[in-house]
Every structure is written in C-alpha cells, then in structure tokens.
C-alpha cells in the first residue's frame, strides 16, 4: 500500500497556523493557575508536533518538542508560570511559524533565530525538575537491529488476567500477529476454567503456551504483547539446541531445537522475565544509538505540492446552503422549461412567477457564493494582542486592547490586503496616539491607555475603526508642518478635518524623529493608498487631549461592487456607491465660474469643481448646461468633485469584469460590468477621473503661463 502523504500537507500547514495563532493569543492571556488556557496551548503544540512527525518535518518536531515539554511542566504544576517563560514561549511561537512557513514556501528559514530560541528553551528546561527526553519521536521507529538470519525458537508463556477481553483485546489477534513473525504452535491450558455455574462469560480463563520459530528478536515479540503487558503474566524465553536457556521463571519443556551454535552472546543470555518492567530492550543492538535521527515516515524532505492555489476552509453549513439553493434553482429551471414546452398566453402569470423565483434563486445563490469567500475579521484582528503586547513592552506605555465586532465577515482577499494598513494604524496609535504614562497621569487620565478596534457592516461596506484615548492630533502642529513642507499655503483657511487629512499627504510625519515603531519608512500616505486600492477610504477624527479615531471603509468584496447607474447621452456608467457623497439638482445661485472656465458648485462650505462627463468622455449628451443639471458629488483622495450626468438610474450590485483581459487599461475606467439586459456598462474610476481633470487643468495653466511654448 502506498499512500501519498503530501496530499495532507496543506491541511497540516493550515491547522498548524491556526494552532500557532491560538497559542499566541492564549499565551498573551495566560494567568497563573489558568488550567484550561494552558491546556489548550499545550494541545495546540502537541497537535503540531504530532502532525509534523507524521508528515516528516523533523525540525518542527524537534523544536516543538521542547516547547511542549515546557508547557507540560506548566500544565501539571511542576513549573510556575512566570512572565519570562511566557516571553520565551512567544518567541518560540514565532520560530515555529518561521519553520512552518518555510515548509509552505519551500524555502530556508532563519536558523539562527531558531537555534537561539531553541537553546533558550533548553536552558529553561535544564533548570527545571525534569529534563526533556527526546526519545518521544524516536522509539516508534527505532529500527530493531536484526541479528543473523537465523531462526530462533521462542517459548512464550501467556497467562492473561481474566478481564483481558474487556479492554477489547483478543488473544486470537495476538497469536495472528505472532504467526506473522514465523511459525507458531499454540497450546491452550484450560485448567483454570471454572465450572459452568461459576463461569462469567465475559471473562477469560485460558492460558497459553506458544512456541514460535522465527528470525526475530525479543523486542518484536514484546511489542505484540505491549498492549496487554499489565493484564497478563508473560514469559518469553529462548530455546537452544540441547539445552534450555530458560532462567528461573516459568518452566517450559524444550520441544523444538535449533542447531545453530553461533548465536551471539547477548542473544543467548537469559532474557529477564518480562512481567515486571518493560523498559526499552536491554540488548544493545536492539536499540539504535541515541543521537540517531528518528527515521521519518516519509521521505526526509517532503515534496511540496507545486500548485499553491491557496484554499479556504468553508463551513459545511455554507456548502449545504449552496446545495439547497442549487436544488431550488434546478426546480425553477425545470418548471420554466416545462412551461416553455407548450406556451400560450394563459400561462403568462405562471411565467412571471417562475421568472421572479429565478431572480430570487439567482440572488440568493450569488450571496451564498460570495459568502464562501467571507471570513470573520478576527482573522485580521488576532495579530493585534501580540502586537500591543510587544509594543507596550518596547515603549513602556501601558495599553489595553479592546476588540469588537470580531465576527464581522469580510472577503478573504480584502482581509489579506487590509492587514498591513491596519497594523500601521495600530502602531501609529501606540506611537503617536497614546501618551507616555507620566503625561497621562499629569493630565488626570488613567495610566493605562486604551486602543479599540471595532468592525461592523454599514450598507454594502465594512467599517473598521481604530480608536485611541490618547492625546489626539495637534491641529496646529499638523498645519505648521504642512506649511513647512509646502503642502498648504500658510494663509489658507482649513477646517479641522481638512487639517487632519493632511497627515495622509505623501512625506508627511509629525513625529520629531522617526521612531522604531511606526516610522518604518511607510507613511500614512501609503496606508491611504493601499486602502484606496481596495476601493475603500479612510477618515480621521480627533479631539485634542481625548484621542483619535481612524475610520476605514472597505467594500465587502472585490468581485462585486455596489453601484449607482447613471446615464450620459446614450451611455450608461456605474459610479461606485462608496465614493458618492450625495446627488443633487444644481441651483443656479450656487454655481460660480472662476479662473477661466472652471465651474465650482457651492456645497455648504465646500466649493466643488464640476466635471461634465460628456466633456470628459467626448460624448453627446442631453444637458450641456451646468444650470439645472444633475450632479453626483463623489470623493476620492480627499477631493470632492461633482460629476454632471443626464439621469440617475437604479442602484445595484454589479460584478466587476476587467477591460484589461482583451483590451487595455482605460483612463477613468476601473472596469466593466454586464447589466441585466446583457449590455456592457463601464465602471467609473473616481480617483482616475479626478486625476484626468487635475492634469488637464494643470496643462491649461501651464499653457497660459507659458504661452510661447507649444504643448506636445
């Protein structure tokens, strides 16, 4: 039988990562005497070790064994849980993650870090009551060194206790196993059998004497009786030609003889009675030299499956739901096709019902398919307890992390890409948000700062808030810095939120010097850019002295978009709903023309530039006058613009299709979709459109400022 173990490796890796996450988060919450937590940490380490052993990742097995031993001592109270050990264990979790990642990516990992942590673990363990025994993984594969190719006659006395069969053991199977080693002769002794009246049918009263002629070692025989060694009296002895090597144990008559005389000395030595103690075999040859690596059950370097497509583990309920919906769809389909067989106008009503049903089925099916890609945001949140733990150690600030809405679901791809921006925002909150303890005390705030991560659904998007109760953003400092950097004019008057938005400008950083924590060469502008690349947006609110709040708005999925359909002339465009601030009918008195031909529309305190789509895309349209037209005010990069359209149509979810596949990237268009009638509609790329508008106004300015130069 050959089973390809590599097929189980992806699932081993996946569950190992899950186990590591559990270990990490539990370690962070570990308190003295918390048996259940330490147990679950132990269990996770134990499972990883077991799996790694089975699939042949010896380095993981060896390392995890140390971790497990330390945890085991903590678990059964031999070792106090001290912070130092917890730190080592956290380090170890990192190492295990490195090791497992290196398996996943088929790369080498940072051996040095692992060696350091490994020796730390060993030192810690050495100072403890029991030293680790590394034989765990070995003994099962200790290949017993075979002696000569000589058959030996073994005489085995087997006297089971009466209740032996109640553990599910059956002597017959033991004898069968013996028979596989060589030829056996079995003699049953029924002397103990009580009278029928006294007999308990669930008990075993027989005893056996087995004579085995086989080229085998005592260990092999012992192994067969391993499971019953405590429920029986067992004597194994070797019989040689002419003489009985039998020691003082149970007498046995020599029945078969072997004439081989040159059996090695150890082999002829009398075997001790087995019934007292079973330690790994006493004979030297039978045990492999200790430093030997365990023989791995699969090839020493497991072959990584080449296709790394990534996988999602989906709950059975989600799949069942899909299958149910599929069933309903099939029913609807057969109903409709039956209707179509001989259709007449009397059946129009039924057709309508059927079509409605089809619509419903399709919608539900779509939602369910999308839900398969959805994971709770706890997958992105779970790294933060550790991060806060490390950062608070590094900065000396006391910080409590509060996580809310962890079950809020989010598309897997979005989740993967939002991780880094979130980490940056949290680092930022620790570094620039939460004040040093002394400052907090001086300001009458609790010593411990609080950072809250909250996730919730809002309309078709998910909102992630990162709140801190720190010092807030210093409006003046930000403004001055922005002036200094030339981002804004010194005399410009900006609202608070406009000033706060300046921190997302490229190259902007208010910290006096780059700190180790958030100043890693990545600025808030990158955070913003990454969030926008996901079709999301970020806003900041802050009250000085009370803290800041960053709000990240993300689409639930990248494959589907909530869109507003608009019409310009004969064309239909889709504006992502998430970018829309509001839609309005223009009022004449709020329209201003400035600096040449630019049209501004007064929206409360903002002056919003008007971009007529028909002009931008060179189309014929119904309305060409801004007066009394429809404006869809959208926002991207903190810039609002009013898109002038002819008509507002429905809002609907659209599936995003790429224009790149068969064509090329088009400026101002992020993709296309197929509408209900089968026609194609373009999806507007709002940041791109704003960009086009800005570029064209810049080149206009350039042209008017340099009239003698001819523009290309």
């Amino acid at each position: 039988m050959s089973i390809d173990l590599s097929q189980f490796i992806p699932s081993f890796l996946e569950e190992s990562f899950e186990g590591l996450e559990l270990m990490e988060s539990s370690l962070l919450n570990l308190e003295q005497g918390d048996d259940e937590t330490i147990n679950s940490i132990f269990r996770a380490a134990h499972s990883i070790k077991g799996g790694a052993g089975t699939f042949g990742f010896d380095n993981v097995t060896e390392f995890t064994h140390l971790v497990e031993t330390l945890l085991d001592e903590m678990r059964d109270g031999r070792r106090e849980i001290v912070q130092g050990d917890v730190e080592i264990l956290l380090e170890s979790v990192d190492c295990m993650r490195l090791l497992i990642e290196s398996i996943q990516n088929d790369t080498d990992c940072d051996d040095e870090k692992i060696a350091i942590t490994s020796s730390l673990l060993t030192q810690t363990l050495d100072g403890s009551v029991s030293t680790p025994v590394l034989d765990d993984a070995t003994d099962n594969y200790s290949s017993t060194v075979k002696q000569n190719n000589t058959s030996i006659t073994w005489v085995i006395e087997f006297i089971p206790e009466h209740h032996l069969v109640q553990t599910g053991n059956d002597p017959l199977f033991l004898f069968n196993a013996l028979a596989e080693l060589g030829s056996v002769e079995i003699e049953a002794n029924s002397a103990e059998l009580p009278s029928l009246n006294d007999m308990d049918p669930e008990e075993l009263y027989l005893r056996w004497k087995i004579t085995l002629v086989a080229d085998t070692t005592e260990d092999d025989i012992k192994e067969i009786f391993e499971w019953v060694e405590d429920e029986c009296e067992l004597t194994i002895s070797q019989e040689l030609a002419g003489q009985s090597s039998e020691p003082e144990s149970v007498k046995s008559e020599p029945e078969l003889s072997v004439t081989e005389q040159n059996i090695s000395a150890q082999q002829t030595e009398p075997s001790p009675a087995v019934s007292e103690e079973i330690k790994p075999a006493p004979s030297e040859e039978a045990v492999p030299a200790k430093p030997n690596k365990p023989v791995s059950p699969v090839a020493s370097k497991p072959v990584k499956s080449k296709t790394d497509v990534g996988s999602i583990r989906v709950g059975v309920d989600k799949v069942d739901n899909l299958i149910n919906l599929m069933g309903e769809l099939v029913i609807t389909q057969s109903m409709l096709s039956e209707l179509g067989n001989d259709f007449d106008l009397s059946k129009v009503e039924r057709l309508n019902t059927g079509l409605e049903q089809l619509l419903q089925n399709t919608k539900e099916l779509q939602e369910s398919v999308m839900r398969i890609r959805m994971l709770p945001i706890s997958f992105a949140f779970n790294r933060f307890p550790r991060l806060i733990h490390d950062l608070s150690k590094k900065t000396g600030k006391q910080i409590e992390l509060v996580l809310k809405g962890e079950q809020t679901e989010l598309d897997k791809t979005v989740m993967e890409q939002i991780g880094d921006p979130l980490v940056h925002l949290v680092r930022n909150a620790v570094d620039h948000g939460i004040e040093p303890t002394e400052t907090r005390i001086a300001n009458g705030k609790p010593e411990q700062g609080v950072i809250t991560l909250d996730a919730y659904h809002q309309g078709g998007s998910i909102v992630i808030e990162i709140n801190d109760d720190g010092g807030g953003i210093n409006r003046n400092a930000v403004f001055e810095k922005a002036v200094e950097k030339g981002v804004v004019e010194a005399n410009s008057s900006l609202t608070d939120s406009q000033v706060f938005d300046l921190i997302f400008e490229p190259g902007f950083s208010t910290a006096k010097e780059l700190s180790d924590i958030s100043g890693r060469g990545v600025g808030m502008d990158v955070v913003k850019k990454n969030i926008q690349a996901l079709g999301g947006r970020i806003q900041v609110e802050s009250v000085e002295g009370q803290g800041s709040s960053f709000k990240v708005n993300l689409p639930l999925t990248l494959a589907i978009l909530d869109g507003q359909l608009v019409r310009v002339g004969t064309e239909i465009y889709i504006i992502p709903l998430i970018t829309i601030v509001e839609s309005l009918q223009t009022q004449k008195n709020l329209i201003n023309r400035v600096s040449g031909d630019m049209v501004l529309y007064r929206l409360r305190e903002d002056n919003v530039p008007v971009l007529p789509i028909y002009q931008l895309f060179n189309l014929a349209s119904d309305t060409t006058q801004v007066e009394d037209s429809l404006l869809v005010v959208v926002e991207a990069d903190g810039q609002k613009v009013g898109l002038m359209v002819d008509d507002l149509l429905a809002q609907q979810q659209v599936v995003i299709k790429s224009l790149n596949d068969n064509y090329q990237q088009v400026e101002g268009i992020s993709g296309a979709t197929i509408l209900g009638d089968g026609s194609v509609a373009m999806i507007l790329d709002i940041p791109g459109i704003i960009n086009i508008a800005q570029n064209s106004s810049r080149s206009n300015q350039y042209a008017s400022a340099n009239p003698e130069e001819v523009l290309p």
Partner: protein
Amino acid sequence: MTKILVVDDSNSIRDMVSFTLKSSGYETVEAKDGQEGLNKAKASSFDLVISDVNMPIMDGITLCQELRKLPSFKFTPILMLTTESSGDMKQRGKAAGATGWLVKPFNPEKLIATIKRVV
C-alpha cells in the same frame, strides 16, 4: 465491512488516517473531538475506535471511559493515538479501558499493521 470511528481534532491527521483506512477497504466515520465521537458512537456501532488523546471539549481518555460504559462498546477495540510513549499515558489509556495505542508519528503502513492486530 469493517467500520471504524476515527476521532482526532487535527484535520490533517484525521484525513490521513481515514484516507489510509478507506484505501485499505475499511469504512470510516470521522469525529473532531471526543464529544462528537461519543455522539457518533451512540448513533451507530463500530468494529474499532481510533482516537487521539489530546483533544478539545472531550479528550480521548474520557471518550474511552464513556465508550466502555456503553453496552455495545464493552468489547470493541479502542486504540489511542498518542505521542507520549511514556508509561503514564499508556497507563491512563489502559485504565480508561483502551485496547492499545499507536504512537505518533506513524505512517500508513504502520497504521494498517497495527489495526490488523485488533480487527
């Protein structure tokens, strides 16, 4: 057909055991912890139970004790999958009524050879 209940919280190990057994012509039912294993055991009958020791919710030792309380599992072989080769774990298993054990890591061949000793 010989029907085997496989209880392990690790998907990869459970899959591997189950796959190996199926490839050798056994029928398997899987459970991811002791409690689920016990529920499935109560709902059906098995020729053999293979269970991990360390599991959340209900561990293998408890599962073994509970199974032995069921009349239909009084004589059913129960094998524990264990990484601890120490006598302690074996003692605990035996005390709980386990038939025997299979020490991890094991390979498919070893697994099949071992279960042939009880079914």
